[in-house]
Protein backbone atom coordinates (compact mmCIF):
# COMPACT_ATOMS: atom_id res chain seq x y z
CA UNK A 1 0.00 0.00 0.00
CA UNK A 2 1.23 3.39 -0.87
CA UNK A 3 -1.27 5.98 0.30
CA UNK A 4 0.05 9.45 0.73
CA UNK A 5 -2.74 11.85 0.02
CA UNK A 6 -6.29 11.50 1.39
CA UNK A 7 -9.30 13.61 0.38
CA UNK A 8 -11.73 14.31 3.22
CA UNK A 9 -15.20 15.63 2.38
CA UNK A 10 -17.54 16.60 5.22
CA UNK A 11 -19.89 19.51 5.87
CA UNK A 12 -19.09 19.51 9.59
CA UNK A 13 -16.08 21.75 10.12
CA UNK A 14 -15.30 20.30 13.50
CA UNK A 15 -15.14 16.80 12.07
CA UNK A 16 -13.00 17.89 9.14
CA UNK A 17 -10.48 19.39 11.50
CA UNK A 18 -10.50 16.40 13.85
CA UNK A 19 -10.12 13.80 11.12
CA UNK A 20 -7.46 15.86 9.40
CA UNK A 21 -5.43 15.98 12.62
CA UNK A 22 -5.83 12.27 13.24
CA UNK A 23 -4.85 11.27 9.72
CA UNK A 24 -1.94 13.71 9.66
CA UNK A 25 -0.70 12.21 12.92
CA UNK A 26 -0.54 8.89 11.05
CA UNK A 27 1.61 10.48 8.39
CA UNK A 28 -0.93 11.14 5.65
CA UNK A 29 -1.27 14.31 3.67
CA UNK A 30 -4.88 15.49 3.95
CA UNK A 31 -6.86 17.76 1.64
CA UNK A 32 -10.38 18.81 2.67
CA UNK A 33 -13.61 20.10 1.18
CA UNK A 34 -16.88 21.01 2.91
CA UNK A 35 -19.32 20.12 0.15
CA UNK A 36 -19.77 17.36 -2.40
CA UNK A 37 -19.37 19.81 -5.25
CA UNK A 38 -16.07 21.21 -3.96
CA UNK A 39 -14.99 17.71 -3.03
CA UNK A 40 -15.25 16.55 -6.61
CA UNK A 41 -13.37 19.56 -7.94
CA UNK A 42 -10.61 18.93 -5.39
CA UNK A 43 -10.55 15.26 -6.33
CA UNK A 44 -9.97 16.10 -9.97
CA UNK A 45 -7.26 18.59 -9.06
CA UNK A 46 -5.41 16.63 -6.37
CA UNK A 47 -5.94 13.04 -7.58
CA UNK A 48 -5.71 11.65 -4.01
CA UNK A 49 -4.77 8.06 -3.13
CA UNK A 50 -7.94 7.58 -1.06
CA UNK A 51 -11.21 9.44 -0.32
CA UNK A 52 -13.30 9.63 2.85
CA UNK A 53 -16.75 11.08 2.15
CA UNK A 54 -19.51 12.08 4.55
CA UNK A 55 -22.91 10.70 3.53
CA UNK A 56 -25.39 13.38 4.54
CA UNK A 57 -24.27 16.80 3.44
CA UNK A 58 -26.43 19.21 1.40
CA UNK A 59 -28.76 16.33 0.66
CA UNK A 60 -29.41 12.98 2.24
CA UNK A 61 -27.52 11.20 -0.53
CA UNK A 62 -24.78 13.72 -1.35
CA UNK A 63 -22.11 11.24 -0.28
CA UNK A 64 -23.47 8.46 -2.49
CA UNK A 65 -23.60 10.74 -5.50
CA UNK A 66 -20.08 12.06 -4.93
CA UNK A 67 -18.86 8.45 -4.58
CA UNK A 68 -20.58 7.53 -7.81
CA UNK A 69 -18.98 10.46 -9.63
CA UNK A 70 -15.53 9.67 -8.29
CA UNK A 71 -15.84 5.97 -9.12
CA UNK A 72 -16.79 6.78 -12.69
CA UNK A 73 -13.46 8.48 -13.34
CA UNK A 74 -10.35 6.57 -14.42
CA UNK A 75 -8.44 7.59 -11.30
CA UNK A 76 -11.42 6.94 -9.03
CA UNK A 77 -11.52 3.28 -10.04
CA UNK A 78 -7.96 2.83 -8.77
CA UNK A 79 -8.41 4.24 -5.28
CA UNK A 80 -10.53 3.32 -2.22
CA UNK A 81 -13.52 5.58 -1.52
CA UNK A 82 -15.01 5.16 1.94
CA UNK A 83 -18.34 6.59 3.06
CA UNK A 84 -18.50 7.95 6.58
CA UNK A 85 -21.76 8.46 8.38
CA UNK A 86 -23.53 8.79 11.68
CA UNK A 87 -26.73 7.77 9.94
CA UNK A 88 -26.54 4.09 10.65
CA UNK A 89 -28.96 1.28 11.09
CA UNK A 90 -29.47 2.15 14.77
CA UNK A 91 -30.71 5.59 13.86
CA UNK A 92 -33.23 4.13 11.45
CA UNK A 93 -31.45 4.56 8.14
CA UNK A 94 -31.67 1.08 6.77
CA UNK A 95 -28.86 0.61 4.36
CA UNK A 96 -25.76 -1.46 4.12
CA UNK A 97 -23.78 -2.83 1.25
CA UNK A 98 -24.53 -6.43 2.10
CA UNK A 99 -26.47 -7.68 -0.91
CA UNK A 100 -25.07 -7.80 -4.43
CA UNK A 101 -27.72 -5.38 -5.57
CA UNK A 102 -26.73 -2.83 -2.96
CA UNK A 103 -23.07 -3.32 -3.79
CA UNK A 104 -23.85 -2.64 -7.43
CA UNK A 105 -25.38 0.74 -6.81
CA UNK A 106 -23.42 1.86 -3.80
CA UNK A 107 -20.12 2.55 -5.44
CA UNK A 108 -18.15 3.04 -2.26
CA UNK A 109 -15.51 0.61 -1.09
CA UNK A 110 -16.89 0.60 2.43
CA UNK A 111 -19.14 2.38 4.88
CA UNK A 112 -17.80 3.47 8.25
CA UNK A 113 -19.50 4.87 11.30
CA UNK A 114 -18.63 8.18 12.84
CA UNK A 115 -16.50 8.88 14.75
CA UNK A 116 -13.65 7.64 12.62
CA UNK A 117 -11.51 4.83 14.01
CA UNK A 118 -8.26 5.28 12.23
CA UNK A 119 -7.22 1.63 12.38
CA UNK A 120 -10.49 0.57 10.82
CA UNK A 121 -10.11 3.12 8.06
CA UNK A 122 -6.56 2.06 7.27
CA UNK A 123 -7.54 -1.60 7.19
CA UNK A 124 -10.28 -0.73 4.67
CA UNK A 125 -7.67 1.00 2.53
CA UNK A 126 -5.36 -2.02 2.81
CA UNK A 127 -8.13 -4.41 1.86
CA UNK A 128 -8.81 -2.39 -1.22
CA UNK A 129 -5.22 -2.29 -2.37
CA UNK A 130 -4.64 -5.98 -1.57
CA UNK A 131 -7.69 -6.86 -3.66
CA UNK A 132 -6.73 -4.62 -6.56
CA UNK A 133 -3.08 -5.52 -6.83
Amino acid at each position, binding site marked *: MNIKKILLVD*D*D*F*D*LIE*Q*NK*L*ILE*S*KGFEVVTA*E*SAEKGFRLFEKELPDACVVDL*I*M*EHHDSGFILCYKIKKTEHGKKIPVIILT*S*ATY*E*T*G*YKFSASTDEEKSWIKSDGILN*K*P*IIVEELISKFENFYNREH
Partner: protein
Amino acid sequence: MASILIIDNEHPIRKDIYTFLTRDGYDIRTTFNGAEGIELAITNDFEFVMIEQKLSDYDGLKVLQSIKQVKPETVCFIIASEPCYEIAVEAANLGACSYVPKPLSYEGLSFHLSKGAKHRQLYIEARNLRRERYNNLLELSREKSMFKTVLNSINGGVLVINSDGALVYFNNASLVNLNLDNLEPGEPILKKLPPQIIKQVSEYILADKFTSKVSEIELEIIPNNKLYIQSVCSHIPRNNDNFSGVVLVTRNITQKREIEQVKSQFVSMVAHELKSPLVAVEGFLQILQNPEIKLTDEKKDEFIKRSSERVKSLFQLVNDLLDISRMDKKEKYRELEVINFLEVVQSTVNLFELEFKKKNILVKINADEKIPMIKAERLEISRIVSNLFSNAIKYNKTDGEIIISLFGNENYLNFSIEDKGIGIKDTDKPKVFQEFFRALNKQTRNVSGTGLGLTIVKRIVESYHGKINFESEYGTGTKFNVKLPIFKN
Protein backbone atom coordinates in the same frame (compact mmCIF):
# COMPACT_ATOMS: atom_id res chain seq x y z
CA MET B 1 -124.35 -7.27 15.41
CA ALA B 2 -124.46 -8.46 11.85
CA SER B 3 -126.10 -6.11 9.40
CA ILE B 4 -127.96 -6.91 6.21
CA LEU B 5 -128.77 -4.62 3.31
CA ILE B 6 -131.59 -5.71 1.06
CA ILE B 7 -131.86 -4.12 -2.38
CA ASP B 8 -135.16 -4.96 -4.01
CA ASN B 9 -137.99 -3.27 -5.85
CA GLU B 10 -140.47 -4.62 -3.39
CA HIS B 11 -140.37 -5.77 0.20
CA PRO B 12 -138.89 -9.20 -0.46
CA ILE B 13 -139.55 -10.73 2.89
CA ARG B 14 -142.60 -11.13 4.91
CA LYS B 15 -143.06 -9.27 8.15
CA ASP B 16 -142.67 -12.44 10.25
CA ILE B 17 -139.33 -13.36 8.66
CA TYR B 18 -138.16 -9.81 9.29
CA THR B 19 -139.13 -10.22 12.93
CA PHE B 20 -137.35 -13.54 13.25
CA LEU B 21 -134.13 -12.18 11.72
CA THR B 22 -134.25 -9.14 13.96
CA ARG B 23 -134.70 -11.48 16.89
CA ASP B 24 -131.67 -13.45 15.72
CA GLY B 25 -129.64 -10.26 16.02
CA TYR B 26 -129.58 -9.03 12.47
CA ASP B 27 -129.86 -5.33 11.72
CA ILE B 28 -131.76 -4.99 8.46
CA ARG B 29 -131.89 -2.09 6.06
CA THR B 30 -133.70 -1.96 2.76
CA THR B 31 -133.63 0.12 -0.37
CA PHE B 32 -135.70 -0.05 -3.56
CA ASN B 33 -133.17 1.01 -6.13
CA GLY B 34 -129.74 -0.15 -7.24
CA ALA B 35 -127.97 3.21 -7.21
CA GLU B 36 -128.83 3.87 -3.59
CA GLY B 37 -127.98 0.27 -2.76
CA ILE B 38 -124.48 0.60 -4.18
CA GLU B 39 -123.97 3.88 -2.32
CA LEU B 40 -125.14 2.40 0.98
CA ALA B 41 -123.12 -0.81 0.59
CA ILE B 42 -119.93 1.09 -0.22
CA THR B 43 -120.19 3.71 2.49
CA ASN B 44 -121.26 1.34 5.26
CA ASP B 45 -119.92 -1.95 6.48
CA PHE B 46 -122.69 -4.44 5.84
CA GLU B 47 -121.79 -8.03 6.43
CA PHE B 48 -124.45 -9.18 3.98
CA VAL B 49 -126.10 -7.62 0.94
CA MET B 50 -129.04 -9.26 -0.83
CA ILE B 51 -129.61 -8.00 -4.36
CA GLU B 52 -132.67 -8.63 -6.51
CA GLN B 53 -131.57 -9.85 -9.89
CA LYS B 54 -133.92 -7.51 -11.74
CA LEU B 55 -134.01 -4.02 -10.26
CA SER B 56 -135.96 -1.18 -11.77
CA ASP B 57 -132.89 0.97 -12.48
CA TYR B 58 -130.06 -1.58 -12.57
CA ASP B 59 -129.23 -5.12 -13.39
CA GLY B 60 -128.66 -6.88 -10.06
CA LEU B 61 -125.40 -8.41 -11.30
CA LYS B 62 -124.08 -4.92 -12.10
CA VAL B 63 -124.84 -3.86 -8.54
CA LEU B 64 -123.10 -6.98 -7.25
CA GLN B 65 -120.01 -6.17 -9.32
CA SER B 66 -119.86 -2.55 -8.15
CA ILE B 67 -120.09 -3.53 -4.50
CA LYS B 68 -117.56 -6.37 -4.74
CA GLN B 69 -115.04 -4.08 -6.41
CA VAL B 70 -114.96 -1.80 -3.39
CA LYS B 71 -115.93 -4.16 -0.59
CA PRO B 72 -114.70 -7.62 -1.49
CA GLU B 73 -115.31 -8.81 2.06
CA THR B 74 -119.05 -8.07 1.93
CA VAL B 75 -121.01 -11.27 1.41
CA CYS B 76 -123.49 -10.79 -1.40
CA PHE B 77 -126.49 -12.88 -2.43
CA ILE B 78 -128.48 -12.62 -5.62
CA ILE B 79 -132.19 -13.22 -5.07
CA ALA B 80 -134.21 -14.18 -8.09
CA SER B 81 -137.94 -14.34 -8.80
CA GLU B 82 -137.17 -16.19 -12.00
CA PRO B 83 -134.17 -18.38 -11.29
CA CYS B 84 -131.95 -19.16 -14.23
CA TYR B 85 -128.92 -21.41 -14.35
CA GLU B 86 -126.71 -19.16 -16.56
CA ILE B 87 -127.29 -16.16 -14.35
CA ALA B 88 -126.50 -18.23 -11.27
CA VAL B 89 -123.14 -19.17 -12.79
CA GLU B 90 -122.37 -15.58 -13.73
CA ALA B 91 -123.36 -14.40 -10.24
CA ALA B 92 -120.99 -16.95 -8.72
CA ASN B 93 -118.23 -15.76 -11.04
CA LEU B 94 -118.75 -12.18 -9.92
CA GLY B 95 -118.32 -13.22 -6.31
CA ALA B 96 -121.88 -13.88 -5.12
CA CYS B 97 -121.98 -16.27 -2.20
CA SER B 98 -125.30 -17.83 -3.20
CA TYR B 99 -128.04 -17.59 -5.69
CA VAL B 100 -131.27 -17.62 -3.75
CA PRO B 101 -134.65 -18.22 -5.45
CA LYS B 102 -137.77 -16.46 -4.23
CA PRO B 103 -139.87 -16.72 -2.21
CA LEU B 104 -137.52 -16.39 0.75
CA SER B 105 -138.25 -18.50 3.80
CA TYR B 106 -136.82 -17.99 7.27
CA GLU B 107 -135.08 -21.37 7.17
CA GLY B 108 -133.65 -20.72 3.71
CA LEU B 109 -132.37 -17.30 4.71
CA SER B 110 -130.87 -18.60 7.98
CA PHE B 111 -129.03 -21.26 6.04
CA HIS B 112 -127.65 -18.84 3.49
CA LEU B 113 -126.68 -16.29 6.11
CA SER B 114 -124.82 -18.80 8.23
CA LYS B 115 -123.05 -20.11 5.12
CA GLY B 116 -122.27 -16.49 4.20
CA ALA B 117 -120.91 -15.80 7.67
CA LYS B 118 -118.46 -18.67 7.32
CA HIS B 119 -117.61 -17.45 3.85
CA ARG B 120 -116.90 -14.02 5.21
CA GLN B 121 -114.84 -15.31 8.09
CA LEU B 122 -112.68 -17.37 5.77
CA TYR B 123 -112.27 -14.43 3.47
CA ILE B 124 -111.16 -12.13 6.31
CA GLU B 125 -108.75 -14.73 7.67
CA ALA B 126 -107.25 -15.22 4.23
CA ARG B 127 -106.94 -11.50 3.79
CA ASN B 128 -105.23 -11.08 7.16
CA LEU B 129 -102.82 -13.84 6.33
CA ARG B 130 -102.07 -12.21 3.01
CA ARG B 131 -101.43 -8.89 4.73
CA GLU B 132 -99.22 -10.48 7.34
CA ARG B 133 -97.21 -12.27 4.72
CA TYR B 134 -96.87 -9.10 2.73
CA ASN B 135 -95.68 -7.20 5.78
CA ASN B 136 -93.21 -9.94 6.64
CA LEU B 137 -91.83 -9.89 3.15
CA LEU B 138 -91.62 -6.14 3.27
CA GLU B 139 -89.76 -6.26 6.54
CA LEU B 140 -87.47 -8.95 5.21
CA SER B 141 -86.68 -7.00 2.10
CA ARG B 142 -86.18 -3.88 4.17
CA GLU B 143 -83.79 -5.75 6.43
CA LYS B 144 -82.03 -7.21 3.44
CA SER B 145 -81.66 -3.88 1.75
CA MET B 146 -80.55 -2.26 4.99
CA PHE B 147 -77.97 -4.99 5.45
CA LYS B 148 -76.82 -4.44 1.90
CA THR B 149 -76.77 -0.67 2.20
CA VAL B 150 -74.85 -0.80 5.47
CA LEU B 151 -72.29 -3.27 4.14
CA ASN B 152 -71.84 -1.26 0.99
CA SER B 153 -71.44 2.03 2.76
CA ILE B 154 -68.91 0.93 5.37
CA ASN B 155 -65.37 1.80 4.57
CA GLY B 156 -64.17 -1.76 5.17
CA GLY B 157 -64.36 -4.53 2.63
CA VAL B 158 -66.42 -7.58 3.60
CA LEU B 159 -65.99 -10.82 1.71
CA VAL B 160 -67.67 -14.07 2.70
CA ILE B 161 -66.29 -17.36 1.44
CA ASN B 162 -67.90 -20.75 2.09
CA SER B 163 -65.98 -23.82 3.15
CA ASP B 164 -65.59 -24.90 -0.49
CA GLY B 165 -63.77 -21.69 -1.33
CA ALA B 166 -66.70 -20.23 -3.26
CA LEU B 167 -67.64 -16.58 -2.96
CA VAL B 168 -70.85 -16.05 -1.00
CA TYR B 169 -70.96 -12.33 -0.51
CA PHE B 170 -68.83 -9.27 -1.19
CA ASN B 171 -69.35 -5.53 -0.84
CA ASN B 172 -68.05 -2.68 -2.98
CA ALA B 173 -65.24 -1.77 -0.61
CA SER B 174 -63.79 -5.26 -0.86
CA LEU B 175 -63.45 -4.84 -4.63
CA VAL B 176 -61.70 -1.50 -4.13
CA ASN B 177 -59.46 -2.75 -1.32
CA LEU B 178 -58.38 -5.82 -3.28
CA ASN B 179 -58.11 -3.90 -6.56
CA LEU B 180 -60.51 -6.31 -8.32
CA ASP B 181 -62.79 -5.34 -11.22
CA ASN B 182 -65.69 -7.60 -10.50
CA LEU B 183 -66.67 -10.79 -8.74
CA GLU B 184 -69.59 -13.16 -9.14
CA PRO B 185 -71.22 -14.82 -6.15
CA GLY B 186 -70.58 -18.54 -6.39
CA GLU B 187 -67.30 -18.31 -8.25
CA PRO B 188 -64.15 -19.92 -6.80
CA ILE B 189 -62.57 -16.85 -5.26
CA LEU B 190 -59.23 -18.02 -3.90
CA LYS B 191 -57.28 -17.78 -7.13
CA LYS B 192 -58.29 -14.15 -7.54
CA LEU B 193 -56.86 -13.10 -4.19
CA PRO B 194 -53.26 -12.04 -3.47
CA PRO B 195 -50.99 -14.93 -2.35
CA GLN B 196 -50.71 -13.68 1.26
CA ILE B 197 -54.50 -13.64 1.61
CA ILE B 198 -54.84 -17.07 -0.05
CA LYS B 199 -52.50 -18.41 2.60
CA GLN B 200 -54.41 -16.61 5.34
CA VAL B 201 -57.85 -17.80 4.15
CA SER B 202 -56.76 -21.37 3.32
CA GLU B 203 -55.75 -21.99 6.90
CA TYR B 204 -59.29 -21.22 7.97
CA ILE B 205 -61.05 -23.08 5.18
CA LEU B 206 -58.99 -26.22 5.72
CA ALA B 207 -59.40 -26.13 9.50
CA ASP B 208 -61.00 -29.18 11.20
CA LYS B 209 -63.25 -27.22 13.45
CA PHE B 210 -64.35 -23.74 14.39
CA THR B 211 -61.84 -21.40 15.96
CA SER B 212 -62.51 -18.00 17.49
CA LYS B 213 -58.95 -16.97 16.67
CA VAL B 214 -58.65 -14.03 14.28
CA SER B 215 -55.80 -13.68 11.83
CA GLU B 216 -54.60 -10.22 10.89
CA ILE B 217 -52.12 -9.37 8.14
CA GLU B 218 -51.01 -6.21 6.36
CA LEU B 219 -50.08 -6.27 2.72
CA GLU B 220 -49.38 -4.14 -0.29
CA ILE B 221 -51.96 -4.35 -3.08
CA ILE B 222 -50.68 -1.64 -5.41
CA PRO B 223 -46.91 -1.07 -5.18
CA ASN B 224 -45.18 2.22 -4.34
CA ASN B 225 -47.38 2.89 -1.33
CA LYS B 226 -50.43 3.39 -3.55
CA LEU B 227 -52.63 0.86 -1.75
CA TYR B 228 -51.84 -0.89 1.47
CA ILE B 229 -54.46 -2.93 3.30
CA GLN B 230 -55.06 -4.78 6.50
CA SER B 231 -56.83 -8.11 6.03
CA VAL B 232 -58.63 -9.71 8.96
CA CYS B 233 -59.87 -13.27 8.61
CA SER B 234 -62.20 -15.20 10.92
CA HIS B 235 -64.54 -18.20 10.95
CA ILE B 236 -68.31 -17.96 10.65
CA PRO B 237 -69.58 -20.37 13.33
CA ARG B 238 -72.19 -23.07 12.71
CA ASN B 239 -73.68 -25.41 15.29
CA ASN B 240 -71.23 -26.25 18.03
CA ASP B 241 -67.80 -26.98 16.78
CA ASN B 242 -68.34 -26.35 13.13
CA PHE B 243 -67.95 -23.40 10.78
CA SER B 244 -69.88 -22.53 7.65
CA GLY B 245 -67.25 -20.35 6.04
CA VAL B 246 -64.82 -17.52 6.40
CA VAL B 247 -65.33 -13.80 6.55
CA LEU B 248 -62.55 -11.56 5.32
CA VAL B 249 -62.59 -7.93 6.38
CA THR B 250 -60.20 -5.62 4.55
CA ARG B 251 -59.31 -2.07 5.46
CA ASN B 252 -57.38 0.56 3.53
CA ILE B 253 -54.42 1.55 5.72
CA THR B 254 -52.40 3.42 3.10
CA GLN B 255 -52.70 6.73 4.89
CA LYS B 256 -51.89 5.27 8.27
CA ARG B 257 -48.75 3.74 6.81
CA GLU B 258 -47.75 7.00 5.23
CA ILE B 259 -48.03 8.71 8.60
CA GLU B 260 -45.98 5.93 10.17
CA GLN B 261 -43.32 6.35 7.52
CA VAL B 262 -43.17 10.11 8.00
CA LYS B 263 -42.91 9.53 11.73
CA SER B 264 -40.12 7.00 11.47
CA GLN B 265 -38.32 9.23 8.97
CA PHE B 266 -38.59 12.07 11.46
CA VAL B 267 -37.19 9.88 14.21
CA SER B 268 -34.29 8.88 11.94
CA MET B 269 -33.54 12.50 11.20
CA VAL B 270 -33.74 13.41 14.87
CA ALA B 271 -31.39 10.58 15.78
CA HIS B 272 -28.95 11.72 13.13
CA GLU B 273 -29.14 15.33 14.24
CA LEU B 274 -28.58 14.31 17.86
CA LYS B 275 -25.67 12.11 16.94
CA SER B 276 -23.78 14.71 14.91
CA PRO B 277 -22.89 17.06 17.79
CA LEU B 278 -22.08 14.09 20.02
CA VAL B 279 -19.70 12.71 17.43
CA ALA B 280 -18.01 16.11 17.17
CA VAL B 281 -17.60 16.43 20.95
CA GLU B 282 -16.32 12.90 21.27
CA GLY B 283 -13.87 13.58 18.45
CA PHE B 284 -12.49 16.64 20.23
CA LEU B 285 -12.13 14.68 23.48
CA GLN B 286 -10.27 11.89 21.73
CA ILE B 287 -7.92 14.31 20.02
CA LEU B 288 -7.25 16.13 23.30
CA GLN B 289 -6.35 12.78 24.88
CA ASN B 290 -4.37 11.44 21.92
CA PRO B 291 -0.63 11.48 22.78
CA GLU B 292 0.26 11.21 19.11
CA ILE B 293 -1.37 14.54 18.30
CA LYS B 294 0.52 17.54 19.55
CA LEU B 295 -1.61 20.63 20.07
CA THR B 296 -0.78 24.16 21.13
CA ASP B 297 -2.54 25.49 24.23
CA GLU B 298 -4.55 27.90 22.08
CA LYS B 299 -5.69 25.04 19.90
CA LYS B 300 -6.69 23.03 22.98
CA ASP B 301 -8.69 25.97 24.32
CA GLU B 302 -10.34 26.40 20.96
CA PHE B 303 -11.34 22.72 20.85
CA ILE B 304 -12.83 22.89 24.33
CA LYS B 305 -14.76 26.02 23.35
CA ARG B 306 -16.01 24.37 20.17
CA SER B 307 -17.05 21.27 22.12
CA SER B 308 -19.05 23.36 24.51
CA GLU B 309 -20.69 25.14 21.54
CA ARG B 310 -21.75 21.78 20.17
CA VAL B 311 -23.12 20.72 23.55
CA LYS B 312 -25.09 23.98 23.72
CA SER B 313 -26.51 23.35 20.29
CA LEU B 314 -27.50 19.89 21.42
CA PHE B 315 -29.45 21.39 24.33
CA GLN B 316 -31.12 23.82 21.99
CA LEU B 317 -32.05 20.95 19.70
CA VAL B 318 -33.52 18.93 22.53
CA ASN B 319 -35.56 21.94 23.67
CA ASP B 320 -36.85 22.52 20.16
CA LEU B 321 -37.79 18.86 19.83
CA LEU B 322 -39.66 18.96 23.11
CA ASP B 323 -41.52 22.04 21.91
CA ILE B 324 -42.54 20.29 18.71
CA SER B 325 -43.70 17.19 20.50
CA ARG B 326 -45.65 19.25 23.02
CA MET B 327 -47.32 21.32 20.39
CA ASP B 328 -50.00 18.83 19.39
CA LYS B 329 -51.11 18.26 22.95
CA LYS B 330 -50.71 21.88 23.85
CA GLU B 331 -53.57 23.08 21.70
CA LYS B 332 -55.92 21.47 24.18
CA TYR B 333 -54.33 22.83 27.33
CA ARG B 334 -53.48 26.31 26.22
CA GLU B 335 -53.69 29.13 28.68
CA LEU B 336 -55.08 31.78 26.39
CA GLU B 337 -54.80 35.43 27.27
CA VAL B 338 -55.41 38.66 25.42
CA ILE B 339 -52.05 39.85 24.19
CA ASN B 340 -50.69 43.11 22.91
CA PHE B 341 -48.36 41.98 20.17
CA LEU B 342 -46.30 45.15 20.26
CA GLU B 343 -45.34 44.47 23.86
CA VAL B 344 -44.08 41.02 22.89
CA VAL B 345 -42.06 42.52 20.05
CA GLN B 346 -40.52 45.17 22.28
CA SER B 347 -39.53 42.74 25.02
CA THR B 348 -38.02 40.37 22.44
CA VAL B 349 -35.99 43.18 20.90
CA ASN B 350 -34.72 44.10 24.36
CA LEU B 351 -33.81 40.50 25.06
CA PHE B 352 -31.66 40.27 21.95
CA GLU B 353 -30.14 43.73 22.28
CA LEU B 354 -26.66 42.45 23.05
CA GLU B 355 -26.63 40.25 19.99
CA PHE B 356 -27.80 42.73 17.40
CA LYS B 357 -25.58 45.48 18.86
CA LYS B 358 -22.62 43.08 18.44
CA LYS B 359 -23.24 43.10 14.68
CA ASN B 360 -24.16 46.77 14.75
CA ILE B 361 -27.60 46.09 13.38
CA LEU B 362 -30.22 48.85 13.35
CA VAL B 363 -33.67 47.71 14.47
CA LYS B 364 -36.74 49.73 13.38
CA ILE B 365 -40.27 49.10 14.60
CA ASN B 366 -43.12 50.50 12.52
CA ALA B 367 -46.42 49.99 14.27
CA ASP B 368 -49.90 51.41 13.83
CA GLU B 369 -51.07 53.59 16.68
CA LYS B 370 -53.75 51.18 17.63
CA ILE B 371 -52.76 47.55 17.32
CA PRO B 372 -55.62 45.04 17.57
CA MET B 373 -55.25 42.53 20.39
CA ILE B 374 -54.93 38.80 19.84
CA LYS B 375 -55.88 35.91 22.07
CA ALA B 376 -53.14 33.33 22.45
CA GLU B 377 -50.64 31.78 24.79
CA ARG B 378 -47.97 34.36 25.56
CA LEU B 379 -45.12 31.85 25.44
CA GLU B 380 -46.02 30.71 21.96
CA ILE B 381 -46.36 34.22 20.59
CA SER B 382 -43.02 35.23 22.02
CA ARG B 383 -41.55 32.07 20.48
CA ILE B 384 -42.77 33.21 17.05
CA VAL B 385 -41.21 36.63 17.48
CA SER B 386 -37.95 35.44 19.02
CA ASN B 387 -37.35 32.69 16.44
CA LEU B 388 -37.94 35.08 13.55
CA PHE B 389 -36.00 37.91 15.19
CA SER B 390 -32.99 35.76 16.08
CA ASN B 391 -32.91 34.47 12.48
CA ALA B 392 -32.99 38.07 11.28
CA ILE B 393 -29.94 38.77 13.43
CA LYS B 394 -28.10 35.52 12.66
CA TYR B 395 -28.47 35.79 8.91
CA ASN B 396 -27.93 39.56 8.75
CA LYS B 397 -24.85 41.44 7.60
CA THR B 398 -22.70 43.47 9.94
CA ASP B 399 -24.11 47.02 10.02
CA GLY B 400 -27.33 45.60 8.68
CA GLU B 401 -30.91 46.54 9.39
CA ILE B 402 -34.05 44.83 10.71
CA ILE B 403 -37.46 46.35 10.05
CA ILE B 404 -40.39 45.10 12.09
CA SER B 405 -43.86 46.24 11.11
CA LEU B 406 -47.18 45.70 12.80
CA PHE B 407 -50.59 46.72 11.56
CA GLY B 408 -54.09 45.41 11.84
CA ASN B 409 -56.95 45.15 9.45
CA GLU B 410 -60.48 43.92 9.82
CA ASN B 411 -59.71 40.32 10.76
CA TYR B 412 -55.97 39.92 10.98
CA LEU B 413 -52.96 41.29 12.71
CA ASN B 414 -50.11 41.57 10.22
CA PHE B 415 -46.62 41.23 11.54
CA SER B 416 -43.47 41.21 9.45
CA ILE B 417 -39.73 41.05 10.07
CA GLU B 418 -37.45 42.13 7.29
CA ASP B 419 -33.67 41.79 7.31
CA LYS B 420 -31.00 43.07 4.96
CA GLY B 421 -29.05 39.88 5.23
CA ILE B 422 -27.86 37.08 3.01
CA GLY B 423 -31.28 36.04 1.66
CA ILE B 424 -32.40 32.61 0.59
CA LYS B 425 -31.46 30.90 -2.66
CA ASP B 426 -34.38 30.00 -4.93
CA THR B 427 -33.46 26.32 -4.73
CA ASP B 428 -33.63 26.44 -0.92
CA LYS B 429 -36.96 28.30 -0.75
CA PRO B 430 -39.29 25.29 -0.83
CA LYS B 431 -37.41 23.72 2.09
CA VAL B 432 -37.37 26.66 4.46
CA PHE B 433 -40.10 25.34 6.78
CA GLN B 434 -38.93 21.73 6.55
CA GLU B 435 -37.66 20.08 9.72
CA PHE B 436 -33.87 20.21 10.10
CA PHE B 437 -33.40 22.17 6.92
CA ARG B 438 -30.55 24.64 7.11
CA ALA B 439 -29.21 26.36 4.04
CA LEU B 440 -25.55 25.53 3.69
CA ASN B 441 -23.20 28.00 2.11
CA LYS B 442 -20.24 30.18 2.92
CA GLN B 443 -22.39 32.72 4.72
CA THR B 444 -24.22 30.24 6.94
CA ARG B 445 -21.11 28.26 7.84
CA ASN B 446 -20.65 29.87 11.23
CA VAL B 447 -24.30 30.26 12.08
CA SER B 448 -25.53 27.76 14.61
CA GLY B 449 -29.07 26.45 14.58
CA THR B 450 -31.14 23.35 14.92
CA GLY B 451 -33.09 23.60 11.70
CA LEU B 452 -36.30 23.51 13.72
CA GLY B 453 -36.90 27.20 14.46
CA LEU B 454 -39.04 27.98 11.43
CA THR B 455 -40.82 24.63 11.66
CA ILE B 456 -41.90 25.59 15.16
CA VAL B 457 -42.97 29.09 14.07
CA LYS B 458 -45.07 27.72 11.25
CA ARG B 459 -46.70 25.17 13.51
CA ILE B 460 -47.61 27.77 16.11
CA VAL B 461 -48.96 30.23 13.54
CA GLU B 462 -51.07 27.58 11.84
CA SER B 463 -52.40 26.25 15.12
CA TYR B 464 -53.97 29.69 15.66
CA HIS B 465 -55.42 29.58 12.13
CA GLY B 466 -52.89 32.14 11.02
CA LYS B 467 -50.68 32.29 7.96
CA ILE B 468 -46.96 32.64 7.38
CA ASN B 469 -44.98 33.26 4.22
CA PHE B 470 -41.78 34.94 3.15
CA GLU B 471 -40.22 36.94 0.37
CA SER B 472 -36.50 36.72 -0.20
CA GLU B 473 -33.82 37.58 -2.68
CA TYR B 474 -30.47 35.89 -2.36
CA GLY B 475 -27.88 38.45 -1.31
CA THR B 476 -30.40 41.16 -0.50
CA GLY B 477 -32.50 40.03 2.42
CA THR B 478 -35.55 38.19 3.62
CA LYS B 479 -38.96 39.28 4.87
CA PHE B 480 -41.23 36.97 6.87
CA ASN B 481 -44.94 37.87 7.01
CA VAL B 482 -47.21 36.51 9.72
CA LYS B 483 -50.99 36.96 9.87
CA LEU B 484 -52.83 36.10 13.07
CA PRO B 485 -56.58 36.36 13.66
CA ILE B 486 -57.43 39.27 15.94
CA PHE B 487 -59.41 38.96 19.13
CA LYS B 488 -62.89 40.46 18.98
CA ASN B 489 -64.95 41.03 22.09
